[in-house]
């Protein structure tokens, strides 16, 4: 069965989520897919997270922002390209303001010390806010396609768990009970919890507990709104108009992480629609064995280094092909696209267009 290529995905889907390990070119891929969509007449919005500076410059992004910005207002593409660099804090703030029952309640939360730490310290928050932003933009009539880049955390699929995890955090029973310190409730607090809280107070100071209690008290009444929203975000991920692109480099560690991601997606009933292999080395049509033999038999002649070099590169390419085959077999059914090692980092729109052309060139390709 022929799987749809990336060209089909950017032409038909409403969301493409680029996931994969850090340092493999996820943001570049996301930007290029956005351009591909704009090139095919769609209105695309790219959500990036912590892009390298020159790539951010290429996309015209000079600051973290909550709102997408239109790139290149001219007639470069039949469609439109928009981009934003995710600001976790302001996205979270907006969410708080939306669900607060009053401006006072919002203010109480926004100024709480524990809340102010959440965006930096609670793992999964950045991932969740990326998904939240994705959900919001998905519902925005201005865009046909939202392409989102996922944060480069070790467990880069945290976004799958993030809504649940944040829900659990906000629902925390220990603090819920503390907030209503009546006699009956105090009895309900297990000895374990009391010991824990006493220890925590001793170890990190009573301030921490006071901040936490104040936070959960301020938050009261908003849990349901948050839970519903988290469920809606989660539901969106399994919508058929959402596609996942797994981005890796053909190296052992990146492939191992890629396989882990694919397995985690599968656990959640999701699948990889496209596999993008970045930074692959060319083999120059050679095989390392015969080239090494040639280099040895020609030792001392000016041909020897030419064969030795081609053997080196072919060896590297052969090893990479094995890695590509491993991950491609694992995501059976996904289209596979290989992007060669480029001479330089992408600095501008033209560079992204070049990558877009490579991404769309073939859908069955080099697997």
């Amino acid at each position, binding site marked *: 069965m022929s799987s749809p290529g990336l060209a089909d995905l950017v032409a038909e889907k409403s969301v493409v989520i680029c996931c994969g390990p850090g340092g493999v070119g996820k943001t570049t891929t996301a930007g290029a897919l956005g351009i591909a969509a704009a090139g095919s007449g769609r209105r695309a919005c790219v959500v990036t997270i912590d892009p390298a500076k020159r790539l951010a410059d290429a996309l015209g992004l000079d600051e973290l922002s909550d709102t997408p910005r239109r790139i290149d207002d001219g007639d470069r593409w039949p469609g439109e390209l928009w981009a934003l660099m995710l600001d976790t804090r302001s996205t979270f703030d907006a969410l708080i303001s939306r669900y607060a029952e009053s401006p006072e309640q919002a203010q109480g939360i926004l100024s709480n010390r524990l809340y102010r730490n959440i965006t930096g310290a609670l793992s999964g928050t950045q991932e969740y806010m990326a998904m939240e932003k994705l959900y919001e933009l998905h519902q925005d009539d201005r865009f046909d396609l939202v392409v989102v880049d996922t944060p480069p955390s070790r467990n880069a699929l945290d976004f799958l768990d993030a809504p649940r995890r944040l829900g659990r955090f906000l629902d925390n029973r220990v603090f819920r009970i503390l907030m209503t310190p009546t006699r009956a409730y105090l009895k309900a607090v297990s000895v374990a919890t009391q010991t824990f809280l006493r220890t925590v107070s001793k170890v990190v100071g009573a301030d921490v507990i006071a901040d936490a209690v104040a936070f959960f008290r301020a938050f009261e009444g908003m849990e349901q709104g948050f839970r519903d929203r988290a469920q809606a975000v989660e539901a969106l991920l399994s919508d058929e108009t959402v596609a996942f692109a797994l981005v890796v480099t053909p190296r052992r560690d990146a492939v191992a992480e890629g396989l882990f991601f694919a397995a985690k997606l599968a656990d959640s009933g999701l699948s990889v629609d496209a596999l993008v292999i970045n930074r692959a080395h060319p083999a120059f049509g050679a095989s390392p064995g015969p080239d090494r033999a040639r280099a040895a038999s020609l030792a001392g002649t000016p041909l020897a280094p*030419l064969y030795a070099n081609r053997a080196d590169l072919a060896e590297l390419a052969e090893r990479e092909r094995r890695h590509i085959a491993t991950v491609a077999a694992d995501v059976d059914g996904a289209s596979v696209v290989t992007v060669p090692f480029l001479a330089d980092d992408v600095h501008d729109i033209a560079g992204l267009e070049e990558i877009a052309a490579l991404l769309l060139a073939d859908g069955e390709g080099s697997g």
Partner: protein
Amino acid sequence: MDPAGFCRQARVFIVAGKGGVGKTTVSAALARMAATAGLTSLVVEVEPSGGLAAAFGRAEPLGYDPVELAPGVHGRALTADDALVEYLQDHGMGRLSRRLLSSGAVDVVATATPGIKDILVLGKVKALERSAAADVIVVDAPAAGHAVRFLTSAAGLLDAVRSGPIRAQAEDVAGLLGDPDRCQVLLVTLAEETPVNEVVETAYTLEDRVGVTLAPVVVNGLYPGVDGLEVDPEEAARAAGTHLRPGEAASLAQAAAFRRSRAHLQAEQVARLADALPLPQLRLPLLFSAEVGPPELDVLAGHLAAEIGTVAVGPPPELPADAGR
């Protein structure tokens, strides 16, 4: 400087760098080099990924308990959760710690006290250092920007927590990080644009905000130089008294051009790094033949030792103030 002398400068070496630059491989090579030089070494993996174990030829990832990876080299994982459980156990909460972790109550405390998990991990590293767990302790630090957060956690926590055992712990960690005779940071990068930019930024941030001493910077994955790639294949064939098959000349020429162009781009980035970051460089080659396993690790450890041999003896240089940004 000889390898043993290099390793004896400090007991703890924290290896940090952006994802994908080969941080784990460099950690493994450093530990292997130390062992070859007659010292015992312990590699501590903060974000266990299996890469460290694989470099030493082990299929299963490292766990909390140290295992021997090679003669003289031990390895172990040390995650934030491990450190937290151990800390709670040390504070008389052993039986409860796992349950508290799963209840989410720990998340609340960790959020309310930013950096606490990092402090606990580094506190454990400090305990390993104090107990002289090995002659050299190599910490494979978290990737990318997390490394900065990891290493600045002590400074941040000292601002936030005014008293108590955690503050004492943070003070101890700050003491470790700030003492060049106890701890140095080895930054790793590739000779590519974005990794070079990031390593320069990380170096200055760490020196400014943590006051940590930077060891030489490791430039990983360099194409080994090959002479004689400029020749025209047809001419070379004539000189060698042989003929090339159709298409062969073009393929050889393209492969040679690719290698020269990559090597040239890398040389530019190496020079740019040298300009922006006045630290000695330890240059490691790209290995074409295979993924890093025990034999390759020996090759890299050998290169590392040779490169260290070119570094002048003496205290590591301090970065000039206000440069590099």
